[in-house]
C-alpha cells in the first residue's frame, strides 16, 4: 500500500533502488537513504573485524599447539623462535584491527574482535611463561601492540604515524583465565616426559593465578566467574599430579611415570572444556 505516485526522480544507484514503490523524493525516504548508508558502513566494518578476529583466533591457537611441543623436544629455542614469528603475524592482523578502529569508539565494535584478542593474550602469555616463568603484564602486551604505519599511508596524511591497540583489562583477564587451561595441559604432558620440576613450578604459578582470580571474585565481568570454575578444575588436576609425584615418585621408576600419568589424563580429559 505504498503511494504509487511514480514520479520519475533520478535515483541514486543504490542496492535498494529496485524497490519500485519507494517514493524517493520525500524527505522521509531521503533520510532513510542516509540511514541505509550509515548502517551499511557500520555493518561492513563489523564484519571485517569479525573476520580479522577469526584469523587471529586460528593463528593464536596454532601457536599454542606449537608451544605444547616444547615439553617433548630437547631444544626449545627453535620452537620458541617459530612461535615468535607466528605471533608477529598475529600482531599484524591486530594492526589491521587498529587501523579499522582508528577514529572510532573502540567499544562500539568490541564484541566483534574480543574473542580473537583473548586468544592472542592466551598465546602471548603462554609463550612468555615458557620463557620467563612469570605472568606477562597488561603493559607488556600493550607495549608490543604499537604499529608504525607503512610509508605510503604516511605520505597521504602527515601526523599520527603511530597506531596503538589497547587490550582492555577484561580481555586480558579472560585471556589469562584461558591460559590456565594450557598450563594444566603442559603440566600433565611434562610429567609424561619425566620432567619432575615443571609440574611443581606450574602448580605454584597456577595457585597464584587462582588466588588472583578469587581476589577479583565476581566484581569482574560476567565471563570471569564462569571461567573461575574451569580454573578450579585445572588447578585441582595439577595439584593432584604434584601430589602423586610426591607420594609415588620415589617408588615408581622414572620410565614408568609416563604410564601412570597417561592413564590419569585419560580419566581427566573428558571433562575438560574447550579452552
Amino acid at each position, binding site marked *: 500500500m505504498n503511494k504509487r505516485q511514480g514520479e520519475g526522480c533520478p535515483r541514486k544507484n543504490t542496492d*535498494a533502488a529496485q524497490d519500485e514503490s519507494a517514493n524517493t523524493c520525500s524527505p522521509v525516504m531521503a533520510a532513510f537513504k542516509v540511514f541505509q548508508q550509515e548502517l551499511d558502513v557500520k555493518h561492513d566494518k563489523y564484519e571485517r573485524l569479525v573476520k580479522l578476529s577469526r584469523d587471529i583466533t586460528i593463528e593464536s591457537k596454532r601457536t599454542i599447539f606449537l608451544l605444547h611441543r616444547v615439553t617433548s623436544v630437547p631444544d626449545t629455542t627453535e620452537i620458541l623462535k617459530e612461535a615468535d614469528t607466528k605471533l608477529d603475524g598475529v600482531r599484524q592482523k591486530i594492526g589491521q584491527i587498529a587501523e579499522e578502529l582508528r577514529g572510532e569508539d573502540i567499544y562500539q565494535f568490541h564484541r566483534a574482535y574480543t574473542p580473537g584478542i583473548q586468544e592472542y593474550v592466551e598465546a602471548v602469555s603462554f609463550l612468555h611463561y615458557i620463557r620467563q616463568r612469570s605472568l606477562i603484564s597488561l603493559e607488556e602486551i600493550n607495549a608490543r601492540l604499537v604499529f608504525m604505519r607503512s610509508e605510503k599511508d604516511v605520505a597521504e596524511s602527515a601526523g599520527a604515524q603511530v597506531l596503538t591497540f589497547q587490550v582492555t583489562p577484561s580481555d586480558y583477564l579472560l585471556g589469562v583465565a584461558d591460559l590456565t587451561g594450557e598450563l594444566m595441559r603442559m603440566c600433565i604432558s611434562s610429567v609424561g616426559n619425566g620432567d619432575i620440576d615443571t609440574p611443581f613450578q606450574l602448580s605454584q604459578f597456577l595457585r597464584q593465578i587462582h588466588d588472583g582470580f578469587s*581476589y577479583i571474585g565476581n566484581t569482574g565481568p560476567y565471563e570471569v566467574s564462569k571461567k573461575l570454575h574451569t580454573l578450579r578444575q585445572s588447578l585441582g588436576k595439577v595439584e593432584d599430579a604434584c601430589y602423586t609425584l610426591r607420594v609415588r615418585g620415589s617408588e615408581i621408576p622414572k620410565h614408568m611415570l609416563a604410564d601412570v600419568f597417561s592413564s590419569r589424563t585419560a580419566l581427566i580429559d573428558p571433562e575438560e572444556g574447550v579452552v
Partner: protein
Amino acid sequence: MSVTEMFGYIQGFLDADQETREDIRKVVQILEQTAREILTVLQSVHQPSGFKEIPNKCAKARELFCTVRTHIADLKTKFPMEQYYRFHEHWRFVLQRSVFLAAFVVYLESEALVTREEVAKILGIEVVRERGFHLDVEDYLAGVLIMASELSRLAVNSVTAGDYNRPLRISNFINELDSGFRLLNLKNDPLRKRYDGLKYDVKKIEEVVYDLSIRGLAKESESGGGK
C-alpha cells in the same frame, strides 16, 4: 610485576569501572522516571476528551523535555565521552523511549516524521559521534518504530472519538515509514526484531482505513494525507 600485583592492578581498574556504572545507573533511573511522566501526559491523547487538547499536551510534554535535557547533561559528566559505547547498554533503553516520546510529540504537532537532528535538539545531545554524547542511528530508528505502534493505537482510538480523517493521515504516514525501513539492510539484531513488528501496525491501520471507507465515513479519502 608479580602475579599478585598484576591482579591488584586489574582489580583497581574493575572497581573504577563499577563505580562509573553505578553513577550512570542512578542518573538513568531519574531519566526513566521523567520519561514515564512524559508518557503519562501523552497517553491521555487516546482518550476521547484528549483529542481536543493535543496542542496542550504537547506543550506540557515539551516542558518536561527540559528536565530530560538537564538529566542528560548530568549523565554526560559521569563518564569519559570517548567511552560512550562502553556504557551504552545502560541508557540505550531510556534513550529509545525518549526518541519515541519526542517523535510522538512532533508527530502530534506537525504530523511529520521527526528528523534525527530534531530529536537530538529536543534531548540536548549531538548527532555526530565526534562531538560528544550522541544519538546512535539504531536508537533513533528503534524509537521511531515504537512510535509506529503507538500511532496504530491512535488510529483506532481516533475513530472511537469520532475523528475519521486522522486514520487516513496516519496510514499515509506509516506507509511512508514502512517503505523507508525497507530501504535498510538490517542485520539480525534487536532493531530487526522490532522492525518485523511494523507490518502488524501497518496492517492494523489499513484495516481501520478499510472499515472507514466501506462505510463512507472517510470523507476526503483520496488525498487524506495532504493535510
